[in-house]
């Protein structure tokens, strides 16, 4: 007996008629699915692009392949229980994710992190920013075909910072370190010296990186005037983070909100003026340099003292009914957690305002009129992590 198996034909592209201005058929355009298993899409992400020759005439981002019900899970576990899950949103920057979540729960429950914990938070967040920005530049170059070299240099430095994270939190990437009202453990012996050493050596690496890249003619040709994001569009689409600042808008939550202890540090907010891919690359390098300033001061000033609010408790944590929104300037943009509590052990509503997700929404506007190869570069410059986009 034989069974007939019908194999569904998987269609990855289709040819559509191209309409002329007078409504008649002028030629053909090609509709292609880029991704989800495309190495340039930084994860499982699909773009349905319509191409006229090599030029993009339409682009539809399709995401959700990595959806894992993060918000619903958080609503059914305890407040503390979703802290490790926040690590997995933007898995490059687990410490800033922790901070944003801890901040909103602290607002909800009226806790206040002590001085030393605030300093530790600033130090770890700025180290995270260094990791994120240098690696992003590496990935961006990889998208342009510079296979490996810049990325490996960035990873070499990232490794040193991850070692610091491991010595402090026990894990390199999934740190699960911040707690409501402070931090989990105190800095181990010798950590500050090690951190100071790494921070002192970092400018040398940034110089090296810039020598390698900033004036490179190929990089200039591939990035200048590519993927321009106009100021108005950036504001209207609620773009945040380096993307927004590359378009020349001075908006940095560390300055605007002054959460934590950021008003104590003296740093500048670098701004671009073209809003193209090159500006976005440059902004990140400059932000690294500003982060180093913050780090130097924080590492010098950090006081001794407790690391967690004495009112904080691990077991049986039930904040009173109410709602709170906590947001921070994560390396990718404004990361916010919106919580509603009904007085129970788990949040009634838990929502993540993910910067990668919102920054991705204007992809089409930036890509129209460019070639397929540019789409890859533009996507790289947005700096997305699919763990955060899809949640």
């Amino acid at each position, binding site marked *: 007996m034989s069974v007939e198996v019908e194999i569904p034909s998987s269609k990855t592209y289709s040819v559509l008629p191209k309409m002329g201005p007078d409504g008649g058929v002028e030629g053909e355009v090609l509709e292609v699915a880029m991704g989800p298993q495309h190495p340039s899409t930084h994860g499982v992400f699909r773009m349905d692009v319509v191409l006229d020759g090599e030029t993009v005439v339409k682009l539809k981002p399709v995401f959700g392949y990595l959806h894992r019900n993060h918000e619903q899970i958080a609503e059914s*576990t*305890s407040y*503390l*229980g*979703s*802290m*490790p*899950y926040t690590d997995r949103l933007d898995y490059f920057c687990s410490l800033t994710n922790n901070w944003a979540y801890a901040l909103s729960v602290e607002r909800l429950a009226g806790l206040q992190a002590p001085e030393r914990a605030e300093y530790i938070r600033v130090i770890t967040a700025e180290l995270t920013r260094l990791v994120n920005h240098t690696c992003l530049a590496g990935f961006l170059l990889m998208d342009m075909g510079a296979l490996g*070299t810049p990325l490996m*240099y960035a990873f*070499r430095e990232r*490794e040193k910072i991850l*070692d610091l994270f*491991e*010595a*402090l*939190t*026990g*894990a390199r990437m*999934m740190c*699960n370190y911040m707690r409501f009202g402070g931090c*989990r*453990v105190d800095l*181990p012996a010798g950590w500050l010296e090690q951190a100071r050493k790494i921070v002192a050596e970092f400018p040398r690496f940034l110089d*090296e990186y810039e*020598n*390698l*890249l*900033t*004036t*490179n*003619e*190929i*990089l*200039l040709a591939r990035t200048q005037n590519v993927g321009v994001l106009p100021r108005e569009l950036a504001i209207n689409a609620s773009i945040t983070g380096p993307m927004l600042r590359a378009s020349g808008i001075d908006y940095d939550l560390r300055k605007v909100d002054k959460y934590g202890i950021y008003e104590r540090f003296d740093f500048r907010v670098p701004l671009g003026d073209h809003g193209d891919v090159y500006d976005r690359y440059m902004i990140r390098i400059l932000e690294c340099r500003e982060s180093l300033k913050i780090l130097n001061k924080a590492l010098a000033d950090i006081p001794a003292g407790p690391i967690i609010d004495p009112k904080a408790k*691990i*077991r049986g944590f039930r904040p009173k009914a109410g709602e709170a929104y906590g947001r921070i300037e994560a390396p990718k943009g404004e990361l916010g957690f919106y919580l509603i509590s009904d007085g129970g052990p788990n949040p009634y509503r838990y929502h993540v305002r993910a910067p990668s997700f919102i920054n991705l929404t204007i992809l089409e506007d930036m890509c129209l009129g460019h070639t397929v190869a540019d789409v890859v570069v533009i996507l790289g410059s947005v700096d997305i992590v699919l763990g955060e986009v899809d949640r």
Partner: protein
Amino acid sequence: MLGSGIIKGMVETARNFVGSYIDENRLVTVEYPEERLPLKEASRNFPFLVYDGDDAAKGLRCVACQICEKECPPQCIYIIKDTAKKPDYIGKMQLQPKVFDIDLSVCMSCQICVEVCPFEAIKMDTEYELSTSDRFEGLLLHKEDLWKSNQYYHKIHPTEAAEVDARLAEEKAKAEAKAKADAEAKAKAAAEARAKAAVPVPAPTPSPTPQPVKTA
């Protein structure tokens, strides 16, 4: 000059290439598994159960209170309580786990179980070479696979273990002092009661009926 940027970059690459032969900082690759980096003291991987003394079954600190089972975010701990009780480190009679399973394929190494355990019974291990070809049973660890001695805990996390020991010793001393004080108070109360009883009511007279005397 066109191309000068590229040349600058090339020089940088060359410097890194040559540097990797002479500079420790540029030669960062570790040839695992021939070479291994020492583990950080804080590093964590999967949980294990601590026991005191030499007999694992007897010295297990876990009292099957099931707090960790409830708090574990991905719900990978499974506990069944035993009906028999055994004394814990301060001598209080406590339950013990009959079954204590952790599914490592689900565990996300978050350390929440360690933080919520009130008895210092579960701690994080640093063992990382755990790969197995058995997808289901191989990573489902039972009580017998999970228990490890306090000495082992001291070996992998010396500072933390010393703190835990000090805390436990303090609690034990407190409990003992309390027990002693309680006993003394009890004795005193009893003595007082006896004294009180002795004053108004005369001591009970020996029973009039003499005990039968055993004769040979």
